[in-house]
């Protein structure tokens, strides 16, 4: 009887330990992610971004089933490419961003946010050399944003980036920006109503959309 008690106590402890460890791990994951997401949003230099991206890659190596670390690593690389002036280095960062976003895509193929980020990579590719990249990558970016919106029409980021592409094209050809502004307004509405039960859901994009608003008024 006594030994039985001890055994059940031990089993109970082990179960308790494993489960608290499980909880602790999820908390640890959320905490680490949130901290680094903050820093990727606020980082000012390529070095700071690299630091944050490194953290996401470390988390990704421990958390084999989570897509968010890859998503934010990719986002960080896109921001690095944005700040980089040298075309070849820009491409290097974008290659890294694409590798990371593809890993996220393998885990959650239907996630509109991930597809949006993929389109973002193509969009920044254009800036490396607009004359030669424009025709190919602008089209590819638009198609990808289209896919993202189809997967989730409530995704404000997909709409906002799409609006930016439409606006750029309209400006270039001096045609009406009505379509672009329509998409932008829709994206701003979605920023207001956007809800996700994922505590790590992306939050970025609103400011750019807001600042673009003045060009549409």
């Amino acid at each position: 009887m006594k030994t039985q008690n001890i055994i059940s106590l031990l089993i109970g402890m082990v179960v308790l330990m494993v489960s608290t460890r499980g909880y602790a791990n999820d908390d640890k994951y959320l905490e680490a992610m949130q901290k680094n997401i903050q820093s990727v949003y606020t980082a000012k230099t390529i070095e700071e971004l690299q630091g944050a991206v490194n953290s996401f890659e470390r988390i990704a190596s421990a958390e084999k089933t989570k897509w968010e670390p890859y998503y934010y690593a990719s986002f960080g690389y896109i921001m690095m490419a944005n700040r980089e002036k040298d075309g070849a280095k820009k491409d290097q960062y974008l290659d890294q961003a694409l590798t990371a976003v593809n890993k996220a895509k393998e885990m959650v193929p239907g996630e509109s946010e991930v597809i949006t980020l993929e389109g973002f990579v193509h969009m920044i590719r254009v800036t490396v050399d607009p004359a030669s990249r424009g025709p190919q990558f602008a089209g590819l970016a638009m198609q990808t944003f289209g896919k993202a919106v189809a997967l989730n029409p409530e995704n404000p980021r997909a709409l906002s980036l799409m609006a930016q592409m439409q606006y750029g094209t309209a400006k270039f050809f001096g045609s009406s920006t009505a379509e672009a502004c329509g998409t932008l307004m829709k994206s701003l509405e979605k920023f207001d109503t956007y809800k996700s039960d994922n505590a790590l859901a992306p939050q970025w994009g609103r400011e750019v959309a807001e600042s673009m608003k003045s060009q549409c008024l």
Partner: protein
Amino acid sequence: MKFLFTTVLVAIVLTAYGQTKISGRVHDMRGEGVPGANIFLLDTYDGTSSSGDGKFEFNTHETGTYVLVVKFIGFKEFRREIVLINKPVIVEINLIEEINELEAVTITAGAFTASDEKRRTVFRAIDIATTAGATADIAGALNTLPGTQKVGESGRLFVRGGDGNETRTFIDGMVVLDAYGPSAPNTPSRGRFLPFMFKGTSFSTGGYSAEYGQALSSALVLDSKDQSEESRTDIGILSVGADVAHTQAWASGSAAGKIQYTNIRPYFGLINQEVDWKTPPESIEASAAFRQKVGKRGMVKFFGNFNHTDYQLYNHDIDNTDIKQLYDLTNSYRYLNGSYKNSLNDNWIVRGGVSYTYQQNNTFLDADHALDTEQGIHVKSVFEGSLSEKVELKTGIEAISRNYYLNYSPENGPAINRAFDELITAAFVEGDLYTSNRFVTRGGARLEYNNLNQALHIDPRISFAYKTGKVGQVSMAYGVFRQSPKNDLLRVNDQLDAEKSEHFILNYQRIENNRTFRIETYYKKYASLVKYINGNAYDLNNAGSGYAQGIELFWRDNQTIRNVDYWVSYSYLRTERDYLDFPYRTTPTFASGHNFSIVYKHFIAALKSQVGATYSFTSGRPYNDPNEEKFNHARTPAYRDLSFNWSYLPKPYLIVYFSCTNVLGRDNIFGYEFSGNMNAEGLYNSRAIRQPAPRFIFLGIFITLSKNKTVNQLPSL
């Protein structure tokens, strides 16, 4: 029991509070610190980034054996097992550079690559389409690069003292027997293939890969586009005809078709021509392309081009221009190309294909009739991949079969028939050895066997490249190249051996901030050139020889002036050869000592336009004046041309394109023709070979219909 419980508790506390400090420094092979590297314990959250001098430290609660991982862009991942026993760990990490396409040195001797995929290229596919004076002709645009000599009456690519036929065109690795459309005698021909079909163009002026045979001076390697992403219809209304194209895309492939009708007659009605046309050229052309993905990484491509052209013109006698002969040409052309590419695994690729060319010229000179037919089949299969990270290997076999037939029936006299069936079988192997990201050696050889003369040749090719710093690199190339004599020689004597050339090339290239500088020098030795024995065109041997040498400069800048891209090329050439009817070694008529060109492109956003101009200068070329004692001793005046183009994009799906060659209307003379008979003063009368018209003016409107309204034909112009 209590004891056991305590032990477990203590153990938990220990794992929670025992800390191990891991510290050290990350550096590259030269000992310099690598900042920003990611250092961590595999499968844990524990880790950090290295600081400015490559140093790092972090703490972990873990104990036991773990894998320490260090990662940074451009370096190989570092992994080492470490044992954590609550004692500080100090590690020195030496990161090894990764050999990658972006950073690694590339062999640039003799090579100009235009590609939208590879990044650090000197030339892009769109550059070809938007070069003024080129009128969207591949050869026209490449003629603004160093290494080429402008031969205005031909329109072909003449490279480094080589004749036009010494440049061979390959599409997806498969040979094209005649890549140029028919043209009237002494008027420039255009390439049959439009630049927009290709995603990559590699133009080599010497020292090219062992994969490419049957090219004495130059290889133009064109890579066709993969499948289209979008369905679209393109309509073009041109001043000389019209075209319509449709592309249908699906998830794993696409099909495209194009029909083009060209009739230059209305244009000639407006602008006076030097040529006395009876019926100006009229042609109908159809092309079709099909692409299908196979499996995960495989791709099948099929391409076909069909063309029918005819024209009639009068040749006037030099002594008495009232005497004229009717020249009537009908040309039929078919080119089919099927290619396949697939990955065997992560490291190895297999690719192969079949191409078929059929060309027939049906010519009448008054009542004399010539029917000249050539058919060729090329079959090839290549394996390429990496033996290790540092060694890449390419090997393949191929067979090129050519079947030529000429029937000449003069009005008076017996008919002449000439024919040959040539089969060249070849095998090649080539390896790239990367000693580091800075140094690469490429060595290879090509074995060729010709069934006609039973000759077997093994030709070595070798090149090196060394990166002198972040932006500069030096490369060298050597190789032996062979090509069967031209059809009009081989049909006289099919036992002739292949003509041979040897290339020695030294190149320095610097690419920094969208500015490119290149300097290249070379020596080319010709041997086994076909020679008339005692000046008899029907008695041939391989006793000819020659050389070419020169220095070439290239500068391109699309950084200094906003929205402006320009490039400048200069080539100096000295060449002499003793071949065909030459009495001794001298410079051939197609060679010019100095070639200079400047290409300027300016994008003006306010006008939604790109305007461009090209200026070319070619020093005088030799021609043979029978009134002079020395052979090929006379020189033509220098060639000068200023061309202009303008693309206007009023709407995303509409482009208006205008171009004009020789804006200044200079009367360029390419050479002189001489009468066969002496006149009363004991001299031979001459007539200059001129441009068919001082200017060529082209106007086109291009409309694209697609779901995505931002698509237009700009990339194809």
